[in-house]
Protein backbone atom coordinates (compact mmCIF):
# COMPACT_ATOMS: atom_id res chain seq x y z
CA UNK A 1 0.00 0.00 0.00
CA UNK A 2 1.26 3.42 -0.93
CA UNK A 3 2.30 5.30 2.22
CA UNK A 4 0.08 8.27 1.40
CA UNK A 5 -2.93 6.01 1.03
CA UNK A 6 -2.04 4.23 4.25
CA UNK A 7 -1.65 7.54 6.05
CA UNK A 8 -4.98 8.72 4.75
CA UNK A 9 -6.61 5.53 6.04
CA UNK A 10 -5.00 6.02 9.45
CA UNK A 11 -6.16 9.61 9.48
CA UNK A 12 -9.67 8.56 8.50
CA UNK A 13 -9.67 6.07 11.36
CA UNK A 14 -8.51 8.79 13.76
CA UNK A 15 -5.26 6.95 14.48
CA UNK A 16 -2.26 9.13 15.26
CA UNK A 17 0.76 8.55 13.09
CA UNK A 18 4.06 8.30 14.89
CA UNK A 19 7.05 9.60 13.05
CA UNK A 20 10.74 9.82 14.00
CA UNK A 21 11.64 13.04 15.78
CA UNK A 22 14.05 14.03 13.00
CA UNK A 23 11.57 13.38 10.20
CA UNK A 24 10.58 16.33 8.01
CA UNK A 25 7.75 18.24 9.67
CA UNK A 26 4.19 17.29 8.85
CA UNK A 27 3.00 20.84 8.88
CA UNK A 28 4.49 21.37 5.46
CA UNK A 29 1.77 19.24 3.96
CA UNK A 30 -0.70 21.44 2.15
CA UNK A 31 -4.01 19.80 1.50
CA UNK A 32 -6.31 20.79 -1.31
CA UNK A 33 -9.60 22.38 -0.37
CA UNK A 34 -11.43 19.12 -1.06
CA UNK A 35 -9.48 17.37 1.70
CA UNK A 36 -10.23 20.03 4.28
CA UNK A 37 -13.95 19.58 4.38
CA UNK A 38 -15.75 18.24 7.40
CA UNK A 39 -16.97 15.21 5.50
CA UNK A 40 -17.58 12.17 7.68
CA UNK A 41 -14.35 10.34 8.35
CA UNK A 42 -15.46 7.19 6.59
CA UNK A 43 -15.71 9.10 3.32
CA UNK A 44 -12.44 10.97 3.67
CA UNK A 45 -11.18 11.77 0.19
CA UNK A 46 -8.42 9.21 0.18
CA UNK A 47 -7.59 9.48 -3.48
CA UNK A 48 -7.28 13.26 -3.31
CA UNK A 49 -4.60 13.25 -0.66
CA UNK A 50 -1.57 14.75 -2.36
CA UNK A 51 1.99 13.61 -1.99
CA UNK A 52 3.70 15.53 0.78
CA UNK A 53 5.93 18.26 -0.60
CA UNK A 54 9.01 17.31 1.31
CA UNK A 55 11.33 18.46 2.59
CA UNK A 56 10.06 21.92 3.40
CA UNK A 57 10.49 23.94 6.54
CA UNK A 58 7.35 24.04 8.68
CA UNK A 59 5.04 26.75 7.48
CA UNK A 60 2.80 28.03 10.21
CA UNK A 61 -0.16 29.56 8.51
CA UNK A 62 -1.97 31.11 11.38
CA UNK A 63 -5.31 32.48 10.25
CA UNK A 64 -5.64 36.20 9.84
CA UNK A 65 -8.23 37.05 12.42
CA UNK A 66 -10.16 40.26 12.21
CA UNK A 67 -11.82 40.61 15.57
CA UNK A 68 -14.63 42.85 14.44
CA UNK A 69 -17.42 41.35 16.44
CA UNK A 70 -18.37 38.11 18.14
CA UNK A 71 -20.61 36.91 15.31
CA UNK A 72 -17.94 37.33 12.64
CA UNK A 73 -15.33 35.69 14.82
CA UNK A 74 -17.64 32.80 15.59
CA UNK A 75 -18.27 32.25 11.87
CA UNK A 76 -14.60 32.41 11.07
CA UNK A 77 -13.81 29.80 13.72
CA UNK A 78 -16.63 27.53 12.55
CA UNK A 79 -15.22 27.54 9.02
CA UNK A 80 -11.57 27.24 10.01
CA UNK A 81 -9.33 24.82 8.14
CA UNK A 82 -5.99 26.16 9.35
CA UNK A 83 -4.86 22.81 10.72
CA UNK A 84 -5.57 19.14 10.26
CA UNK A 85 -7.92 18.98 13.24
CA UNK A 86 -10.68 20.34 11.04
CA UNK A 87 -10.81 16.97 9.32
CA UNK A 88 -11.56 14.97 12.44
CA UNK A 89 -13.73 17.40 14.39
CA UNK A 90 -17.49 17.10 14.55
CA UNK A 91 -17.70 20.83 15.05
CA UNK A 92 -15.62 23.68 16.39
CA UNK A 93 -15.97 24.63 20.04
CA UNK A 94 -15.86 28.40 20.05
CA UNK A 95 -16.39 29.07 23.71
CA UNK A 96 -19.38 29.92 25.81
CA UNK A 97 -20.57 32.41 28.34
CA UNK A 98 -21.18 36.03 29.00
CA UNK A 99 -19.47 38.17 26.35
CA UNK A 100 -19.35 41.01 28.88
CA UNK A 101 -17.74 38.85 31.55
CA UNK A 102 -14.87 40.08 33.69
CA UNK A 103 -13.60 36.52 34.00
CA UNK A 104 -12.16 34.47 31.16
CA UNK A 105 -11.52 30.80 31.91
CA UNK A 106 -9.18 29.08 29.49
CA UNK A 107 -8.78 25.34 29.12
CA UNK A 108 -6.88 23.10 26.78
CA UNK A 109 -9.00 21.70 23.96
CA UNK A 110 -12.37 20.08 23.41
CA UNK A 111 -12.76 16.45 24.40
CA UNK A 112 -15.13 13.93 22.89
CA UNK A 113 -18.24 15.28 24.60
CA UNK A 114 -17.32 18.90 23.87
CA UNK A 115 -16.74 17.98 20.21
CA UNK A 116 -20.22 16.44 20.14
CA UNK A 117 -22.00 19.29 21.88
CA UNK A 118 -19.97 22.22 20.57
CA UNK A 119 -19.55 23.63 24.08
CA UNK A 120 -16.43 23.65 26.26
CA UNK A 121 -16.29 21.91 29.63
CA UNK A 122 -19.32 19.68 29.53
CA UNK A 123 -19.34 16.33 31.26
CA UNK A 124 -17.84 15.63 34.68
CA UNK A 125 -14.83 17.92 34.30
CA UNK A 126 -17.24 20.66 33.31
CA UNK A 127 -19.37 20.03 36.38
CA UNK A 128 -16.30 20.28 38.56
CA UNK A 129 -15.27 23.51 36.82
CA UNK A 130 -18.75 24.88 37.49
CA UNK A 131 -18.38 23.92 41.15
CA UNK A 132 -14.93 25.52 41.33
CA UNK A 133 -16.38 28.73 39.93
CA UNK A 134 -19.35 28.59 42.31
CA UNK A 135 -16.94 28.25 45.21
CA UNK A 136 -15.81 31.81 44.42
CA UNK A 137 -19.35 32.95 43.81
CA UNK A 138 -19.35 32.78 40.02
CA UNK A 139 -22.13 30.80 38.32
CA UNK A 140 -20.92 29.43 34.98
CA UNK A 141 -23.07 31.81 32.95
CA UNK A 142 -21.36 34.84 34.50
CA UNK A 143 -17.94 34.02 33.03
CA UNK A 144 -16.64 33.29 29.55
CA UNK A 145 -15.08 29.89 28.95
CA UNK A 146 -12.82 29.08 26.00
CA UNK A 147 -10.04 26.71 25.08
CA UNK A 148 -6.58 27.10 23.56
CA UNK A 149 -7.73 24.87 20.69
CA UNK A 150 -11.16 25.17 19.11
CA UNK A 151 -11.08 21.64 17.69
CA UNK A 152 -10.70 18.29 19.39
CA UNK A 153 -7.33 16.58 18.99
CA UNK A 154 -8.06 12.94 18.08
CA UNK A 155 -7.84 10.61 21.03
CA UNK A 156 -7.49 13.60 23.37
CA UNK A 157 -3.76 13.80 22.69
CA UNK A 158 -1.91 16.97 23.65
CA UNK A 159 -2.19 19.77 21.11
CA UNK A 160 0.72 19.98 18.68
CA UNK A 161 2.70 23.24 18.64
CA UNK A 162 1.61 24.08 15.10
CA UNK A 163 -2.03 23.50 16.02
CA UNK A 164 -1.66 25.86 18.94
CA UNK A 165 0.10 28.53 16.91
CA UNK A 166 -2.60 28.41 14.24
CA UNK A 167 -5.44 28.50 16.73
CA UNK A 168 -4.13 31.07 19.22
CA UNK A 169 -5.12 34.06 17.03
CA UNK A 170 -8.75 33.11 17.70
CA UNK A 171 -8.24 33.17 21.44
CA UNK A 172 -6.37 36.46 21.12
CA UNK A 173 -9.32 37.87 19.19
CA UNK A 174 -11.71 36.60 21.88
CA UNK A 175 -9.57 38.29 24.52
CA UNK A 176 -9.53 41.51 22.51
CA UNK A 177 -13.33 41.48 22.26
CA UNK A 178 -13.99 40.42 25.84
CA UNK A 179 -11.37 42.59 27.54
CA UNK A 180 -11.43 40.41 30.65
CA UNK A 181 -10.33 41.85 33.98
CA UNK A 182 -8.82 38.49 34.92
CA UNK A 183 -7.92 35.26 33.18
CA UNK A 184 -7.90 31.85 34.82
CA UNK A 185 -5.96 29.16 32.98
CA UNK A 186 -6.85 25.62 34.01
CA UNK A 187 -4.28 22.94 33.38
CA UNK A 188 -0.73 22.66 32.16
CA UNK A 189 -1.44 23.01 28.44
CA UNK A 190 -3.35 26.26 28.78
CA UNK A 191 -0.85 27.71 31.23
CA UNK A 192 2.24 26.78 29.24
CA UNK A 193 0.86 28.08 25.97
CA UNK A 194 -0.41 31.36 27.39
CA UNK A 195 2.88 31.97 29.14
CA UNK A 196 5.08 30.53 26.37
CA UNK A 197 6.94 28.38 28.85
CA UNK A 198 7.53 24.71 29.47
CA UNK A 199 7.66 25.10 33.25
CA UNK A 200 5.59 22.52 35.12
CA UNK A 201 2.21 23.57 36.41
CA UNK A 202 3.37 23.26 40.01
CA UNK A 203 5.77 26.15 39.37
CA UNK A 204 3.24 28.27 37.50
CA UNK A 205 0.40 28.16 40.00
CA UNK A 206 0.39 30.17 43.20
CA UNK A 207 1.77 33.33 41.61
CA UNK A 208 0.39 36.15 39.57
CA UNK A 209 1.13 36.29 35.84
CA UNK A 210 0.06 38.81 33.25
CA UNK A 211 -1.04 38.29 29.69
CA UNK A 212 -0.85 40.32 26.51
CA UNK A 213 -0.74 43.99 25.77
CA UNK A 214 -3.50 44.73 28.25
CA UNK A 215 -1.37 43.13 30.96
CA UNK A 216 -4.41 41.18 32.09
CA UNK A 217 -3.89 39.37 35.41
CA UNK A 218 -3.54 35.64 34.76
CA UNK A 219 -3.90 32.99 37.46
CA UNK A 220 -3.05 29.33 36.91
CA UNK A 221 -4.71 26.34 38.51
CA UNK A 222 -5.28 22.65 37.92
CA UNK A 223 -7.49 21.29 35.19
CA UNK A 224 -10.73 19.89 36.64
CA UNK A 225 -10.13 16.60 34.78
CA UNK A 226 -6.88 16.27 36.72
CA UNK A 227 -8.67 17.11 39.97
CA UNK A 228 -11.19 14.36 39.29
CA UNK A 229 -8.26 11.93 39.19
CA UNK A 230 -6.45 13.59 42.09
CA UNK A 231 -9.10 14.93 44.48
CA UNK A 232 -6.48 15.60 47.17
CA UNK A 233 -5.26 18.53 45.07
CA UNK A 234 -8.70 20.19 45.11
CA UNK A 235 -7.62 22.06 48.20
CA UNK A 236 -4.71 23.59 46.31
CA UNK A 237 -7.11 24.49 43.50
CA UNK A 238 -9.27 26.26 46.08
CA UNK A 239 -6.19 28.20 47.24
CA UNK A 240 -5.62 29.22 43.61
CA UNK A 241 -9.23 30.29 43.23
CA UNK A 242 -9.10 32.37 46.41
CA UNK A 243 -5.95 33.96 45.03
CA UNK A 244 -7.73 34.65 41.73
CA UNK A 245 -10.72 36.12 43.56
CA UNK A 246 -8.47 38.44 45.56
CA UNK A 247 -6.55 39.39 42.42
CA UNK A 248 -9.81 40.17 40.65
CA UNK A 249 -11.01 42.28 43.58
CA UNK A 250 -7.83 44.34 43.33
CA UNK A 251 -8.01 44.61 39.52
CA UNK A 252 -11.69 45.57 39.55
CA UNK A 253 -11.06 48.04 42.36
CA UNK A 254 -8.45 49.95 40.40
CA UNK A 255 -10.52 50.29 37.23
Amino acid at each position, binding site marked *: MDSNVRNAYLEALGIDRWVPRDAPPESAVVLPESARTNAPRARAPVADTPAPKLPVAPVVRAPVVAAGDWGALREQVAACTACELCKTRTQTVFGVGNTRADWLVIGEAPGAEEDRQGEPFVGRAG*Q*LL*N*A*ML*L*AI*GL*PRETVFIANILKCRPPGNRDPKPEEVSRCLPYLSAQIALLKPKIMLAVGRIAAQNLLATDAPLARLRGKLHHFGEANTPLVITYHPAY*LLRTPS*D*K*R*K*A*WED*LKFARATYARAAGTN
Partner: protein
Amino acid sequence: MAAAPEVLREVPEIHIRPMMEIDLSEVALIEQQSYAFPWSENIFRDCLRVGYTCRALDLAGRIIGYGVMSLGAGEAHILNVCVGDEFRNLGFGRRLLEHLLERAAASGVAEAFLEVRPSNLAAIRLYQRLGFEQIGIRRGYYQAPDGREDAIVLKRDLKT
Protein backbone atom coordinates in the same frame (compact mmCIF):
# COMPACT_ATOMS: atom_id res chain seq x y z
CA MET B 1 -21.06 38.11 50.72
CA ALA B 2 -23.83 37.43 48.30
CA ALA B 3 -26.02 34.44 48.96
CA ALA B 4 -25.27 31.32 46.97
CA PRO B 5 -27.17 30.83 43.76
CA GLU B 6 -29.96 28.31 43.64
CA VAL B 7 -28.00 26.25 41.14
CA LEU B 8 -25.90 24.99 44.03
CA ARG B 9 -28.71 22.61 44.89
CA GLU B 10 -27.96 20.75 41.67
CA VAL B 11 -24.17 20.76 41.85
CA PRO B 12 -22.97 17.16 41.93
CA GLU B 13 -19.47 18.16 42.93
CA ILE B 14 -20.57 18.96 46.46
CA HIS B 15 -20.00 16.07 48.79
CA ILE B 16 -19.64 15.15 52.43
CA ARG B 17 -16.32 13.62 53.39
CA PRO B 18 -14.36 12.98 56.58
CA MET B 19 -12.85 16.12 58.06
CA MET B 20 -9.05 16.15 58.13
CA GLU B 21 -6.43 18.00 60.14
CA ILE B 22 -5.60 20.12 57.10
CA ASP B 23 -9.23 21.34 56.96
CA LEU B 24 -9.18 22.82 60.43
CA SER B 25 -8.24 26.40 59.58
CA GLU B 26 -11.11 26.68 57.09
CA VAL B 27 -13.51 25.00 59.49
CA ALA B 28 -12.50 27.37 62.28
CA LEU B 29 -12.98 30.33 59.95
CA ILE B 30 -16.57 29.32 59.15
CA GLU B 31 -17.14 28.70 62.87
CA GLN B 32 -15.92 32.20 63.75
CA GLN B 33 -18.11 33.77 61.10
CA SER B 34 -21.14 31.80 62.26
CA TYR B 35 -21.19 31.93 66.04
CA ALA B 36 -20.87 34.65 68.64
CA PHE B 37 -19.09 32.12 70.88
CA PRO B 38 -17.23 29.88 68.43
CA TRP B 39 -15.28 26.74 69.10
CA SER B 40 -11.56 27.28 68.72
CA GLU B 41 -9.57 25.46 66.07
CA ASN B 42 -8.10 23.35 68.86
CA ILE B 43 -11.51 22.12 69.93
CA PHE B 44 -12.05 20.79 66.40
CA ARG B 45 -8.56 19.27 66.50
CA ASP B 46 -9.45 17.50 69.73
CA CYS B 47 -12.67 16.22 68.17
CA LEU B 48 -10.62 14.67 65.36
CA ARG B 49 -8.12 13.17 67.79
CA VAL B 50 -10.68 11.53 70.05
CA GLY B 51 -12.29 9.97 67.00
CA TYR B 52 -15.57 11.82 66.88
CA THR B 53 -17.42 11.55 63.60
CA CYS B 54 -16.23 14.76 61.92
CA ARG B 55 -17.45 15.55 58.42
CA ALA B 56 -16.71 18.36 55.97
CA LEU B 57 -19.03 19.59 53.23
CA ASP B 58 -16.69 19.98 50.26
CA LEU B 59 -17.42 22.16 47.21
CA ALA B 60 -14.60 21.62 44.71
CA GLY B 61 -12.01 21.76 47.47
CA ARG B 62 -13.63 24.58 49.40
CA ILE B 63 -15.14 23.64 52.74
CA ILE B 64 -18.57 25.22 53.02
CA GLY B 65 -19.88 23.41 56.10
CA TYR B 66 -19.18 20.69 58.65
CA GLY B 67 -20.68 18.47 61.29
CA VAL B 68 -19.28 16.86 64.45
CA MET B 69 -20.91 13.95 66.30
CA SER B 70 -19.86 11.71 69.16
CA LEU B 71 -20.99 8.12 69.30
CA GLY B 72 -21.00 6.12 72.52
CA ALA B 73 -23.02 4.32 75.13
CA GLY B 74 -25.74 3.61 72.59
CA GLU B 75 -26.24 7.29 71.89
CA ALA B 76 -25.27 9.73 69.19
CA HIS B 77 -24.64 13.30 70.29
CA ILE B 78 -24.61 15.85 67.50
CA LEU B 79 -22.21 18.49 68.78
CA ASN B 80 -21.91 20.96 65.94
CA VAL B 81 -23.50 21.39 62.54
CA CYS B 82 -22.74 24.52 60.57
CA VAL B 83 -22.99 25.82 57.00
CA GLY B 84 -21.12 28.93 55.86
CA ASP B 85 -23.31 32.00 55.47
CA GLU B 86 -22.99 32.15 51.67
CA PHE B 87 -24.39 28.65 51.38
CA ARG B 88 -27.35 28.63 53.74
CA ASN B 89 -30.98 27.86 52.92
CA LEU B 90 -29.95 25.45 50.18
CA GLY B 91 -30.51 22.21 52.07
CA PHE B 92 -26.88 21.59 52.99
CA GLY B 93 -27.51 21.60 56.74
CA ARG B 94 -30.17 18.99 56.21
CA ARG B 95 -27.78 16.90 54.09
CA LEU B 96 -25.12 17.08 56.78
CA LEU B 97 -27.58 16.07 59.49
CA GLU B 98 -29.01 13.22 57.45
CA HIS B 99 -25.47 12.00 56.81
CA LEU B 100 -24.64 12.07 60.52
CA LEU B 101 -27.89 10.30 61.43
CA GLU B 102 -27.16 7.61 58.83
CA ARG B 103 -23.69 7.13 60.31
CA ALA B 104 -25.18 6.91 63.78
CA ALA B 105 -27.81 4.38 62.72
CA ALA B 106 -25.16 2.34 60.89
CA SER B 107 -23.06 2.19 64.04
CA GLY B 108 -26.01 0.71 65.89
CA VAL B 109 -26.91 3.48 68.32
CA ALA B 110 -30.59 3.85 69.17
CA GLU B 111 -30.97 7.57 69.83
CA ALA B 112 -29.52 10.85 68.67
CA PHE B 113 -29.40 13.94 70.89
CA LEU B 114 -28.54 17.56 70.34
CA GLU B 115 -28.86 20.94 72.01
CA VAL B 116 -29.95 24.15 70.35
CA ARG B 117 -30.40 27.74 71.43
CA PRO B 118 -34.08 28.73 71.68
CA SER B 119 -33.17 31.79 69.60
CA ASN B 120 -31.97 29.64 66.67
CA LEU B 121 -35.40 29.21 65.08
CA ALA B 122 -34.16 28.07 61.66
CA ALA B 123 -32.18 25.25 63.24
CA ILE B 124 -35.07 24.21 65.49
CA ARG B 125 -37.41 24.01 62.49
CA LEU B 126 -34.89 21.85 60.62
CA TYR B 127 -34.42 19.51 63.57
CA GLN B 128 -38.18 19.12 63.93
CA ARG B 129 -38.56 18.34 60.25
CA LEU B 130 -35.93 15.64 60.68
CA GLY B 131 -37.95 14.06 63.47
CA PHE B 132 -36.27 15.49 66.55
CA GLU B 133 -38.49 16.13 69.57
CA GLN B 134 -37.89 18.27 72.59
CA ILE B 135 -37.14 16.27 75.72
CA GLY B 136 -35.96 19.02 78.04
CA ILE B 137 -34.25 22.31 78.74
CA ARG B 138 -30.76 22.87 80.12
CA ARG B 139 -30.90 26.15 82.04
CA GLY B 140 -28.12 28.64 81.31
CA TYR B 141 -26.27 26.16 79.10
CA TYR B 142 -24.90 28.62 76.54
CA GLN B 143 -22.87 31.80 76.81
CA ALA B 144 -24.84 34.77 75.53
CA PRO B 145 -24.04 38.45 75.08
CA ASP B 146 -26.24 39.34 78.07
CA GLY B 147 -25.40 36.45 80.37
CA ARG B 148 -26.52 32.89 79.69
CA GLU B 149 -28.99 31.28 77.34
CA ASP B 150 -30.89 28.02 77.86
CA ALA B 151 -30.46 25.00 75.62
CA ILE B 152 -33.38 23.06 74.24
CA VAL B 153 -32.52 19.36 74.28
CA LEU B 154 -33.83 17.41 71.31
CA LYS B 155 -33.91 13.67 70.72
CA ARG B 156 -34.65 11.42 67.80
CA ASP B 157 -35.02 7.64 67.80
CA LEU B 158 -32.89 5.97 65.18
CA LYS B 159 -34.48 2.52 65.26
CA THR B 160 -37.45 2.45 62.91
